[in-house]
């Protein structure tokens, strides 16, 4: 898909670029802040110039010059095709089934793509109170499919999540259908070490490609569950020079913009 590059790159860069590649030019994508936002904008600035990016602040068809610090930065509105109210965003556009791909990050994730961004520990007496779901609970069930991106760690990728902020495949299999959810749910996980896809039957995330320089052992050592590997595990194509330059330029513009307080 991309030419091999002689440039060096970090696992974080590989993660963002591999996630960007999963998006297509005709995607309509609901963008989560952080890592998903970087991936979606790299896609827009490389192979998917016509992609529609939507942020939950109501901005539709946005094309930010720098990555927003929040989901409601002025840059998103200034460059959007249109900006609608938040109730309209959630009712007509998300609930109405207009959005093909939801792109989420996660604090805690399990093997079935269930996400926790609410609490670590008990809900009533949390060890750590996280920000909560925001738009994610309905993004997870109303978008046609869900892509997830996060860095691997034993703390983040766990056997059992502490709270079901956003429902993935539940206990696996047909759990979504049993709850009356008609959308596909988690269809892709991109970490700093590998690309994962759900098993067609069990829905457990399975490693389909490992990034250059990473190993099966590392993937397992940084994951809290016993990892399943596909029968054939590919090597993720290296970032191209264009992909790397695009990502680095975007990050640099973003750094300068946010440093100055503008």
């Amino acid at each position, binding site marked *: 898909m991309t030419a091999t590059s002689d440039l060096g790159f970090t696992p974080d860069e590989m993660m963002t670029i591999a996630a960007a590649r999963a998006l297509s030019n005709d995607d309509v994508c609901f963008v989560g*802040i*952080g890592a998903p936002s970087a991936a979606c904008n790299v896609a827009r600035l490389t192979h998917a110039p016509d992609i529609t990016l939507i942020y*939950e*602040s*109501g*901005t539709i068809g946005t094309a930010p010059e720098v990555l*927003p*610090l*929040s*989901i*409601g*930065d*002025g840059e*998103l*509105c200034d460059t959007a095709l249109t*900006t609608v*109210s*938040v*109730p309209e*965003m*959630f*009712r007509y556009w*998300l*609930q109405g089934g207009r959005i093909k791909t939801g792109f989420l990050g996660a604090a805690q994730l399990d093997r079935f793509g269930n996400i926790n961004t*609410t609490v670590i520990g008990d*809900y*009533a007496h*949390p*060890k*750590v*109170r*996280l*920000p*909560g*779901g*925001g*738009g*994610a*609970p*309905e993004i*997870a*069930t*109303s978008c046609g499919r869900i892509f997830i991106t996060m860095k691997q760690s034993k703390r983040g990728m766990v056997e059992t999540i502490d*709270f*079901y*902020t*956003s*429902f993935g495949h*539940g206990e696996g299999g047909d*759990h*979504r259908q049993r*709850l*009356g*959810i008609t959308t596909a749910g988690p269809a892709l996980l991109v970490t700093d070490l590998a690309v994962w896809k759900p098993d067609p039957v069990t829905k457990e995330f399975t490693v389909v490609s490992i990034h250059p320089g990473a190993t099966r052992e590392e993937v397992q050592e940084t994951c809290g569950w016993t990892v399943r590997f596909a029968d054939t595990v590919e090597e993720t194509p290296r970032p191209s020079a264009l992909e790397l330059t695009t990502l680095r330029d975007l990050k640099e513009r973003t750094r300068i913009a*946010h*440093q*100055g*307080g*503008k």
Partner: protein
Amino acid sequence: MAQITTLASAVRDLVHDGDTVAFEGFTHLIPHAAAHEVIRQGKKDLTLIRMTPDVIYDQMIGMGLAKKAVFSYAGNPGVGLLKRMRDALENGWPRSIETEEHSHAGMANAYEAGAAGLPCAIFRGYRGAGLKAVNPNIRSVVCPFTGEELAAIPANRPDVTIIHAQKANRKGDVLIEGIIGVQKEAVLAAKRSIVTVEEVVDHFDDAHPNLCILPHWTVTAVVVVPGGAHPSYTHGYYARDNAAYLAWNEISGDRDTFLAWMKANVLDVGPDVFAARVEGLRK
């Protein structure tokens, strides 16, 4: 009928101890100056509704004004967690607070239901979500036509909604543009409302016919506070002060640092300081 007044008298007359108060503004147009006036007047036992409790709720909770927070995302956007809110939730400092947690879709629907005069909001939500088990206000109804089970939550009906907007005219009609969030719904859902604005103009002659306008008879008080959204931003007037959001992460990390900052920057000053804070951020 909107009265054009001062921030001190609007807050004194319209916000009472024990009230349910919504401060809205979705990253954009967050009514910081008004929140600081509520803190200066030491209002107590407030139930605070806000989709995205960020710095202003960290400040009000940290100063002990809140008995309950109703929300859907409690974070410093793009920066991290809310340390004062966490201290209240995890350690009960300066007091313990109750929470009622929703999703954004839930909160947006609840405001819309409030504006529409309905008792509850009905939507396709919370499927498989853990919030259903911890928030007894998340229930369900069955569609009488299709049999589909849908989420139902109570409408948001604040005693007072407080927002910031670009401008008002002399009658008190209010114009909001850019990321408009849930402000219109939140004002229409409330019994009373306070709108701080950047300026009052004679006419909206140049306004696009579809701009979001709240007629003066839907607004209780209008107050001119230039810069009143800082460190949030006002589209067309000044940019977001991202550095201030980053700095808040440090200020809020320690109780004493927080209290000292609040004294110097909130308790000992008035709304007139906001204009200078946005001077370097104007376009």
